[in-house]
Structures are given as C-alpha cells and as structure tokens.
C-alpha cells in the first residue's frame, strides 16, 4: 500500500538548468519518461546530455547515455566544449553506449530491442544508474520501418524504464515533411509523462531557439514557449516569465555623474536599481551612460559598458570630446567595454552574453546602450523577456544599471519604450529635443524615480568640451528657455547684473568723490585756520613791536628833548640815552 503510494507521488529531479526547472515546476519527473522532441539541430542532444551531466555532477547520480545517431565518442567530446569534465565523469558516473548503427548494415526481417535492453539492464545495475538517455530514438525507429513495430518497441522501452524505475530521457527528431511521423509522434507523447517541444526558427534572419513543455502529467507547468540558447556553458533557458523581482529597500545613492542631475533625483539613483534613459537618435544617451560609468570608476567601483552597434574605441573617443575619459579606467581594469553587433545573434544570445560578462567582471554599475537594440532582431516579445531577466539578475546582484533606449518616430511623443521596459524601470529619464526659436536643444526630464523625490523640471542638457551639465533653469512666459534663448536670457541676466554693479560702483565713486572733496575742503579750512592763527600771532607780535617802538620813540622824544636841554654835554647824554632805553624794553616784556 505504502509502496503503491510512493510510486504515485510525483517526485521531480532538478536538471540543474535553472530555467528548465522553472518551466517544469522543479525538473524532470523522477522514475518516469521525458520526451524531448524537435527538428534537426535544435539542441535535443545537448539538453539531454546536460541533464545527465548535471545530475552526475551535482547529485552524483550515475547515468547512461545511449547514442543512436551520433558516435558516442563524438557526443562526449562535444560535451567537453561546454567545460564539462567528461573523462572524469566517465570514470564513475557516466557511461556512453554507442548504439549508432553501421551505415552499411543490412536489414532482413523483424528485430527488436530485447538484446539492447538486457545489456543496458546489466550495465545499469552494475553502475547503479538512475537516469538513462536514449538519444535520437527516431533513427532506430526508422530502421524498423513499420508503424506497428515502432509502437511495439516504444512500448517495450517504456515498460522497461518503468520496471527498472529509471528516469528516462528520450529525444526524437521531428520532421514534418517525412511521412509516418504523425503516427509515430502521436504515440510517443502517450508513453511520456513529460513532453518538451524544442524549436529553432528564423526571425528576422536570426536563429532563435525556444522550448515549450507540451505536457507534464500530474504537474502544473508553464505552457508558454520560452527562449533558450546553447551558450558556452551549455543550455540556458530563459524562463522567469511573470516572475517579478521582489522590491528590496535600497538606501544608498549612486551618482549619475552629473551633480545637478543628482540633485534633481534627491541624490542620484538608488544602488541596485535600474534607470532607463530614453531619447531619439543623437540626444546623448550614450554620453550619459559613459558619464555614469566614469563616475563609478572614479569612486573605485567596477563598471561594465555593453554597447550595441558602436565599437568601443569610437565610443571612448566620442566621450573624450565631452570630457568623459574612460581610457584610464579601461587600463586599470575597473571598466570593461564590450561592443556587440546586434545582428550577430538573437536577443536571448545577447542576454546570455551579458549575463556571462556580469559573472566574469562583477560590475557594480552596468550600462547597456541601447537596450532597444535587442528588439532589432528576433522579435519584441523575446527581447522584452530577455530584458526583464537582465533586470532581475542585476537587482539580485545589487548592480546599478543604466539602460538606454532609442525612441523613434511617433514613440517620441507617446513616451513609450519599444520593450515596455519603462514599466520595469525604477527611474526613467527622458532626453528630448526641444524645438524652439529655430533650434533643437536637448531637454532632460525625469519621468519617474521610484521611491524618491525628484524634480519635475525640464532642464537643458548642455554638452561642451569641458563636460556635461544641466543648465540653470530659466523660464519665460511659462516655458523653459533653452539654447540661444537661454543664452540670451543668461546674457540679459548677466547684463542686468553688470548694470547694477556699475550703478553701485558709480554711486560709490560719487560718494567717494564727495568725501574726497570734503576732505580737501576740510584740509583747506584747516590750512586756512592755521594760516589765520599764524596771522594772529604775527599781528600780536606786530602789535607788541609797534608798542615798543612807540615807547622808543617816546623815549627818543624825551631824549631829544633832554638832548636839547643837555646839548652842552653831548658825550654824557649818549651814554645815558642808551641805558634807559634798554631798561625800558625789558620792563615791558616782563609785564606781558
């Protein structure tokens, strides 16, 4: 009873392929059969092998790989290209069975899989295998060349897997043009508990891989088609559809590289968030992206610049012309620049590439310029999906991201982004051309900035050889002035200031002049005063002098009178006359 119950409970085993586990709600059904179907070259073998390898590597689960189409050695060697250590794994956990039929084999009459299954049974029990892959079962079935026989052998295989409680992975090619396939593939999904359809198609001349879980018995799963790529580390499935990253509180601010823009955003972007800069061609989105990363490097942070369609050297040169110098940071290794040609691959491949770059470089800040390039090839839905996952990854790693997105035509007015990323973006800055007064000027507006106060002003973005900044806001008649009008306004303001300064200076000079004049007057008056006082002294002296002279004269008069009286005695009179005169002066001086 309990055994029965155990068998009924669907257990899943992780494939180690994150996205695949997501769409299947946990991985492959354990002890059941999974069918991987798809056209030629769509990645069935790699996917099956990767499931086997990751089981062996992560859980030490032994497994067997039966190769019906490719030479087993070849399969193992190809796996080495993905960095899987096949020689080591083949020592213990993995066993490859070369079930590739010789090309010159002759068929005569009916045959079956009894022998092979007996052999595999022995091998499986010898190594304790839990998982077994039958790769390209269609090759074997084609050889049977009889629908009834095909069904019989598939049934035999299915029974065998169930009996031995092995987790089976069967891959098969689908060729719609080949007769008989419909019947074959009608039966196959019946025996499988989980069926995954792989496809590869050209969209805008770019090959896109996608997979879809067609059925999963007893388990909910994502029915949508999800993109996948075969990257340097094997299959990567992009499948966080509808899974939105948990918003985390971020406190730290990261500078945009423009002090005035930081001020408008109340300090910059929050660390670990993403910002979107939209604008039409030539508005300077790349420049802002460069500036943002330059600022990061200056703070000693690691930065990654992913540029679509513009090569790194040109970008560095262009940025240098507006005083944004990336070369030193490239040399120091803080900054890594990767130029990617959009047409070269599908959006999913670009996503994987960026993901790997992030894993390699560990950036604190990332710029993708422009993200909208992803849409150029392979369709919008896939690109949006890739962009969403990129945002998710960056948020988890606390990478502050600046995406740029090109807006063209009518979109410019509508303020929508081709990827609808604007709804996912934490901050959204829009650079537009303001047409006014016969000029196009760059105007920057913050459309949104989650969780922070931000300026609602439209500001002119000014690029010059000394750098990039936002001009002071001037408004006139309810409009923000830009370009020449702003310069005129600035000039007018400057002239007004100059005029006022002049006016004040003139007044000051006038006052100074008056003061100087007053000083002069004061000096003159003082001099006059001094002169007058001197005059007064002179006069006083003169007065004294005249008094003494009068006395002298009086004396003389007296003397003369005396002389007349004493004419008879002249010699004595002379001597006497001098003596009394001198004595008289002395007496007056003391009295003064």
């Amino acid at each position, binding site marked *: 009873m309990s055994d029965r119950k155990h068998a009924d409970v669907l257990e899943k085993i992780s494939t180690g392929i994150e996205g695949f586990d997501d769409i299947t709600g946990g991985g492959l059904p354990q002890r059941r059969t999974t069918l991987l179907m798809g056209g030629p070259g769509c990645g069935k073998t790699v996917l099956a092998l990767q499931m086997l390898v990751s089981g062996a590597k992560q859980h030490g689960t032994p497994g067997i790989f039966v190769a019906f189409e490719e030479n087993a050695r070849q399969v193992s060697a190809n796996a080495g290209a993905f960095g899987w250590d096949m020689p080591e794994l083949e020592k213990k956990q993995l066993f490859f069975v070369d079930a590739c039929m010789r090309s010159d084999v002759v068929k*005569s*009459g009916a*045959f079956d899989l009894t*022998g*092979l299954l*007996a052999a595999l049974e022995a091998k499986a029990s010898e190594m304790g295998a839990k998982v077994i892959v039958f790769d390209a079962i269609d090759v074997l079935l084609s050889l049977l060349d009889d629908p009834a026989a095909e069904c019989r052998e598939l049934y035999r295989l299915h029974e065998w897997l169930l009996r031995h409680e092995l987790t089976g992975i069967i891959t098969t090619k689908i060729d719609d043009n080949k007769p008989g396939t419909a019947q074959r593939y009608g039966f196959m999904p019946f025996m499988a508990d989980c069926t995954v359809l792989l496809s590869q198609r050209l969209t805008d001349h770019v090959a896109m891989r996608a997979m879809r879980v067609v059925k999963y018995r007893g388990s909910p799963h994502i029915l949508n088609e999800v993109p996948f790529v075969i990257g340097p580390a094997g299959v990567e499935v992009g499948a966080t559809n509808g899974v939105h990253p948990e918003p985390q509180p971020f406190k730290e601010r990261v500078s945009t590289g423009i002090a005035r823009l930081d001020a408008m955003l109340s300090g910059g972007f929050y660390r670990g968030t993403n910002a979107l800069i939209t604008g039409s061609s030539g508005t300077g989105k790349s420049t802002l992206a460069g500036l943002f990363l330059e600022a990061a490097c200056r703070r000693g942070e690691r930065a990654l610049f992913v540029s679509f369609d513009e090569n790194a050297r040109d970008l560095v040169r262009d940025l240098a012309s507006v005083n944004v110098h990336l070369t030193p940071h490239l040399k120091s290794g803080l900054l890594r620049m990767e130029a990617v040609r959009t047409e070269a691959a599908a959006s999913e491949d670009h996503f994987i590439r960026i993901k790997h770059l992030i894993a390699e470089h560990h950036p604190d800040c990332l710029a993708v310029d422009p993200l909208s390039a992803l849409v150029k090839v392979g369709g919008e839905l896939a690109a949006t999906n890739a962009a969403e996952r990129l945002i998710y990854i960056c948020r988890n790693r606390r990478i502050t991201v600046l995406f740029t997105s090109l807006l063209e035509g009518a979109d410019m007015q509508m303020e929508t982004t081709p990827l609808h990323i604007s709804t996912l973006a934490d901050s959204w800055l829009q650079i537009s051309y303001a047409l006014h007064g016969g000029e196009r000027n760059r105007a920057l507006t913050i459309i949104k900035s989650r969780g922070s106060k931000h300026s609602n002003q439209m500001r002119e973005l000014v690029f010059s050889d000394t750098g990039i900044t936002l001009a002071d806001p001037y408004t006139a008649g309810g409009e923000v002035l830009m370009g020449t009008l702003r310069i005129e306004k600035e000039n007018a303001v400057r002239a007004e200031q100059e005029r006022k300064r002049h006016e004040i200076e003139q007044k000051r000079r006038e006052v100074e002049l008056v003061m100087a004049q007053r000083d002069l007057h004061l000096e003159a008056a003082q001099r006059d005063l001094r002169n007058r006082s001197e005059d007064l002294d002179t006069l006083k002296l003169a007065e004294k002098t005249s008094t003494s002279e009068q006395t002298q004269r009086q004396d003389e008069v007296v003397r003369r009178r005396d002389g007349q009286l004493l004419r008879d005695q002249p010699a004595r009179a002379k001597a006497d006359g001098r003596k009394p005169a001198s004595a008289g002066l002395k007496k007056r001086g003391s009295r003064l």
Partner: protein
Amino acid sequence: MSETFHTGDHPHGAYVFRLYLAGGAPNSVRALANLYAICRKHFPDSHRIEVIDVLKEPLRALAEAIVVTPTVVKVSPAPELQIIGNLSEEDEVLRALGLPQKETP
C-alpha cells in the same frame, strides 16, 4: 557462453557467422533457424555459426556495439558484414553475401 555449430571440415575459406540473440525471443529463435537453413543450403561444407545470447552476456553486446537483436555478423570472409533482423527476407541476406538469389526478376 556461446555455442558454436560446425559443419564441414574446410576451415579455409569458411563462412563464419556470429549471431547475437536474446534468449528465446521469437525473432531470435527465428533468426537462428533461418541462418542455419541458409548456411546448409549455400555453404553446406564450410560454415561456422557462433551464437551469443545477449541475455547471458549482456556486457559483451555493449562492448561489441550490438544495438538490436537479432544481429548477425559475418566475420569471415572479409569484409565484415552486419545483418539485423530475423533473416526472414532471404533475398536480402543473399544479396548482402553476394550470392545468387533464388528468383531473379
């Protein structure tokens, strides 16, 4: 655990076959009978059949890259030839062995 059927005394130029089969499975039983009949008819004096039961020697089948049962390998004369199936289509076998077929159209 193989059985060998010898017929005739001409080891040189003899036809040597190795038959991989799965115990008493219908196709296997039929293959053995058909192979025996062909040999008796076409090389009555110079043939040898080695029978390998995959159920008894499963790992040998893996080592020798035997995918389906029954499989007949013509070991000699060279070149080696592999025939799969219960050998019910005798013409195919004869054509593969380079022998004249029963009925020529």
